[in-house]
């Protein structure tokens, strides 16, 4: 009798451990959710996006970014120049930057509004350089006063800043950011596939090459 119970116990342990093992193997082989290419991950360009590159490229890289985010700045400082040289200037890749802000108002949001409006209706070069070099500038009175001056100087910038044009755009970016279940910046979306976090140039290059092959076939 004792022997029978012991035998049954061992049989159960064997069955349970086999099930756990098979389950674990299946779980291990399943792709992670973020690795999936989903049609609902689609993003569209907006006239206020900060775009680098031409339309006739192999792939479009969407980037959710913030100038307040250390690794976004690191990407623009350390990785972007090589990406620009190798892929954007050669017409292989278009980079579409979609700035996001978690706050609904305040200096950061105003700086993003100014960035997208100046990029659309003026020359973004110096502002871009400033935001990368010294992001805390957006909290200063001087930055606010320069913003007001630029608004007064150009009617298109004024319209962009003072109507809900830029505000709606930033809000839409935030909605897209949440819709795609992004948790931080930078996040890249290529061919409906999400790549989260900072990438070195080598990592970015591998992703681009893989996505170009996908897009061309």
């Amino acid at each position, binding site marked *: 009798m004792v022997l029978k119970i012991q035998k049954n116990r*061992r049989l159960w*342990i*064997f069955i349970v*451990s*086999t099930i*756990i*093992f098979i389950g*674990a*193997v299946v*779980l*291990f082989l399943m792709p992670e959710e973020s690795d999936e290419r989903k049609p609902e991950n689609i993003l569209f360009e907006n006239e206020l996006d900060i775009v680098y590159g031409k339309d006739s490229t192999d792939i479009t890289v969407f980037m959710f970014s*913030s100038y*307040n*985010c*250390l*690794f976004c700045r*690191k990407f623009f400082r350390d990785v972007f120049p090589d990406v620009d040289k190798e892929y954007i200037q050669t017409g292989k890749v278009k980079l579409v930057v979609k700035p996001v802000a*978690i706050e609904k108002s305040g*200096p*950061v949001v105003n700086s993003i509004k100014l960035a997208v409006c*100046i990029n659309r209706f*003026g*020359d*973004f*070069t*110096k*502002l871009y*350089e*400033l935001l990368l*070099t*010294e992001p*805390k*500038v957006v*909290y*200063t*009175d*001087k*930055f*606010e006063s*320069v913003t007001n*001056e*630029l608004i007064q*100087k*150009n009617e298109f*910038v004024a319209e962009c800043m003072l109507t809900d044009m830029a505000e709606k755009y930033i809000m839409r970016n935030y909605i897209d950011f949440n819709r795609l279940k992004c*948790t*931080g*910046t*930078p996040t890249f979306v290529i061919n409906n596939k999400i790549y*989260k*976090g*900072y990438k070195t140039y080598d990592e970015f290059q591998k992703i681009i090459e893989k996505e170009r092959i996908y897009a061309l076939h």
Partner: protein
Amino acid sequence: MKTKNFFIWVMMILAVAVISCDKDEDEESCDSEDLAADFNCPVDVDAIATFCTDGVNNSYYTYAGTDYMCTGVDASTCDEALNEIGAALLEAGCGAKKSGSVDAAKIKLSTMAENLLEEVRTKSIYE
């Protein structure tokens, strides 16, 4: 019977091994930041903090061997962590608390930033 027992143990160990290997920890990126200028530190105070993020779930600062967790992934969610580092730096002999995002008057811009801001004012709009 011994073989069967051995087989059961091997299966269980394999199951545990596979489960524990299933989710790799998110790869972390780190970057050093010198907070000396922000906190007005004397030259002999090491004010280099390291900011690390996995880009997905967690970010934190490390200063003097202590981790200061952020509330989110972005560097913008690290105000509290920076305040705590600020307190540690003040104890270490630095002169002033970090220019926060709230008090605009206290923010000290570098000469380069001042010059760039001037260029933004004059060169951002086409005449």
